[in-house]
């Protein structure tokens, strides 16, 4: 995955490789579950644009009751650079403009557009938590087994990110068409 990712369907599969449970997913399932998550994001974006034709994402978020906060900082540590965040508890999206500026430059996009795309990514997580259900739970892998008995299983967190990339990318393309 690039330092400033704006992946398409194929590139988004890289996200799965970073998941801690990647090695537990059977190889034959990997591509299919990535596509399933991407498709979910794509479908959600089409529905939202149909529901709110011609509206920009901050307005859509407002209509949906999602709070938005713009932070000027570049949120970065030794491991990660964060562009946007969605807090379930506060029902709030935070956009880190310092990081987004760099993301916009790397992807050769105007800042305003880049900011809208990052917010689209976070908006998908909001949709997951409010109406779609968690994308990560679409595919479960056993994490603790004794013989054939599965004692614990887990969803794949990366699927949620792939879904969000699918949402943001579709939103970007459809908005251009509009």
């Amino acid at each position, binding site marked *: *995955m*690039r*330092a*400033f*990712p704006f992946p398409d369907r194929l590139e988004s599969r890289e996200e799965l490789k*970073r998941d*801690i*449970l990647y090695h*537990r997913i059977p190889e034959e399932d990997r591509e299919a579950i990535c596509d399933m998550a991407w498709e979910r994001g794509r479908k959600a974006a089409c529905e939202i644009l149909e529901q709110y034709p011609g509206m920009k994402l901050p307005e859509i978020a407002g209509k949906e009751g999602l709070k938005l906060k713009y932070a000027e900082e570049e*949120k*970065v*540590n*030794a*491991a*990660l*650079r*964060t*562009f*946007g*965040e*969605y*807090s*379930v*508890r*506060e029902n709030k999206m935070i956009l880190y403009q310092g990081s987004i500026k760099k993301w916009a430059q790397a992807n050769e996009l105007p800042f305003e557009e880049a900011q809208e795309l*990052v917010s689209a*990514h*976070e908006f998908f*997580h909001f949709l997951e938590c409010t109406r779609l259900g968690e994308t*990560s*739970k679409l595919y479960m*892998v056993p*994490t*603790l087994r004794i013989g054939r008995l599965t004692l*614990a*299983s*887990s*969803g*794949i*967190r990366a699927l*949620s*990110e792939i879904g*969000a990339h699918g949402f943001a990318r579709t939103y970007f393309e459809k908005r251009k068409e509009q």
Partner: protein
Amino acid sequence: MVTGIIVVVIFVAVAALMISKKLPTVLALPLMAVLIAVAAGLPLKGDEGILTYVIPQGALKLASTYVAILFSCWLSRILYRTGVSATIIKKAAELGGDKPLVVSLLLCAASVFLFTVLYGTGAVAMVGAIVLPIMLSVGVPPMVACNSFLAAMTAGYMLNPANIAAVTNITGVEQGSMYTAAIILTVLSCIFCVGILVWGFKKEGKKYAFAAEIPGSDGEEIEPVKGIRGFLACMTPFVVVLVMLIFNLDAITVFLIGIIWLMIMTVKGSWSKYCSMIVQSCYEGFKEGAPTASLMFGIGMLINAMTAPTTQAAIEPFMQAITPTTAIGLILFVCILSPGSLYRGPFNILGLGAGLAASMMAVDAVPILALSVAFYATLRWPTQSCPTSTQVVWCANFVGYEPTTVAMKVFWPNWIVTALSVVILVLMYM
């Protein structure tokens, strides 16, 4: 009495120089040892001479402690290079799956387990570089990730044979008599760690983030250990602690047993290549242990300066006046002054506190064991969150915060946990 006051002035002046970063601890401790020796009227040569006793014998006084620390750092390096540490951490994270709190709890449990044998900032960086990115990627707030990891590391450290050896060599108490205190401090630190995580998650809730890895931050890919031998290699920390608790052996011996155990469980491929890795790990480990070992030279000198009969005679009236004689007195004394353990201050037994501990013990007003465990309890705090501790600096920088900000976030909870542990331990041992 006057000499006692002069010694206190020297303490305060050197501490101030250390805190203001005008003088590094590694220089401050020998300097203080010499200044105190001069103030107490120790001769230059002779049985308690500055040039014949305080400096040369002081530098060797804690030899068994710093050799144990160097061995521990050697073991840490082998655990890293054979992929054992990474395997333990990644298995814990896999078990937690997509549940951030469970992942964090399991990662912290793995860190506690590892730090019962790992030692030094190098080891903290090796483990932290795997644990912290996983915690951050599952949505744990950076401050919570940093402080919970440091609390987990501290919990492991409390049971680490090298740390127990450090305290017992300074205070002179029997190693075996410290085990219960070490276990209690480990348990309290674990509870503290869980508290930080639960409180952090309750306050911040679940979070999703659109984030990307910083290029080059993923480190070198090390092959994980597998199979029965791999599992047994992962049990190395357990083996080391068990050997220490059951056979009550010296820390150097238990670490050496750990190294041999690990070698048996991980040796594969070309023997000469494997041996070269073991030797390389030894050199790298010793380099990582050097900062702590060099502190031990100064601590030994300080202890010798403080415990020389002439010094003791000079400062005894003062020490008798300030040293508590009852359990309640000791509890209040240590609890109130325990923030003095930060910045390697007068309550940090691996800093200026070595001198204070030695002088309080010489007065013989309270049982030495009770005093030892009280000082060990205060050591937990700076281990976890002293802004000048290199492990705290590394972790804070990693998550993008100032070390002071990270330390201050848990200042009051740390004081409470320290006070609680002092109360429990002093009442148990007095």
